[in-house]
């Protein structure tokens, strides 16, 4: 799971900005400024599905794509990682100053719970 490429980020941004499931063609139109071929966008979408960042659903005979979780949910997940509140003392990330108060932590957990849990979350 390496970093997402610029294209992957552009497609995710387009999906998030849309706010509802979209087809490959619609995303290609959204990214018209980047002058991308439909096939390129489809390749990226398939990669995102493989990385469990995007889900694919059949709507009649068309394929619609939508993000697995919202931007806010991912931001909340990252913040919880830092606060050491998701993982158990693996010392994976140490933060500058442990000073988050409990209201913040509770709000973060709520933000994650309200959103559908990202399918790619590790156990």
């Amino acid at each position, binding site marked *: 799971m390496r*970093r997402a490429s610029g294209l992957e980020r552009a497609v995710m941004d387009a999906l998030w900005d849309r706010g509802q499931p979209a087809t490959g063609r619609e995303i290609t139109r959204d990214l018209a400024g980047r002058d991308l071929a439909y096939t390129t966008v489809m390749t990226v979408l398939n990669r995102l599905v493989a990385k469990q960042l995007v889900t694919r659903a059949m709507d009649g005979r068309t394929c619609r794509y939508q993000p697995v979780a919202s931007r806010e949910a991912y931001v909340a997940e990252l913040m919880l990682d830092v606060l050491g509140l998701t993982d158990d*003392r693996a010392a*994976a*990330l*140490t933060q*500058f*100053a442990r*000073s988050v108060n409990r209201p913040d932590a509770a709000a973060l957990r709520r933000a994650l719970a309200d959103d559908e849990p990202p399918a790619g979350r*590790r156990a």
Partner: protein
Amino acid sequence: MIYAWHYAVALLLAIGGAAVFPRCRWAHVAPRGALAVWQALVLTSTVSPVGVLMAAGLEPYHRGIVPGLICFTRGLVSVHSRPRPGAGQDAAVAAGLLLAAWIGAAWARCAIGARRLRRRHRLLLSLVGTHDPAAGAGATVLDHPAPAAYCLPGRHPAIILSRGALDALDQAQLAAVLAHERAHLAERHDLLLLPAAALRRAFPRGRLIRRAHDAVALLVEMRADDWAAAQSWREDLARALGTFRALGVEGPPDGAMAAAASDLGMRIDRLRCPGDRPPAAARIALLVLAAALALTPLSLIALPV
């Protein structure tokens, strides 16, 4: 039984050291030396319990652990070998191997778990992280109001600041925080934390182990503070810590929050009033002691052949 006794004594000394060392006042004044002492204590405590069991079980062979294990397995395989140990000694060897496997698994889970978390973290950051000219080109910004500053160690290191931190810190404080995080990356503090974290994972209810892990974590922060202070960010770093503290605890703090608050206070105080360094002779003596303590059980793994 002399080798088993060596391990037992080393273990007792390490445990005693872990109990007594937190009270040593110069640890916070010379964090690098203190970290070396803690590594010796933690490594000795990790190796010695296994050593006691294995040495007791392999005693008839009068060898170090690895050479003794080789003879032991030969004894299992062939009937015509040297003194066949009794059932008690077989059990001791088995117990030693089990304990080694348990600790090894904890090490693996810590290292692999940390790597996995960081990889996912890196992936999500590349999707939702932004950049801000205020933070500079070297840092990624996470759009969240809670203050946070941290780094992602590894082969592709990164420094991350939350929007809340960016808004709360002025330019000088920001530079100090970035210098602090660069220290963590440059000196690979994540590796320094691994032995204590792994030991804690293997024995999560051990009180001394928990204290050792917390002590190492705090010393690592102090070491990064010193690194930044050496680059003339001392006062700005102290102010940045003060800003974080002011934004932090609201409401009655629970145990973890209280500990975090006191850690912050200690870091601010030592930046503003650095204590006198203890005499070099005393520090060197303690380092030599710690090294001797760690090397004894480690050497008995391979010696005598």
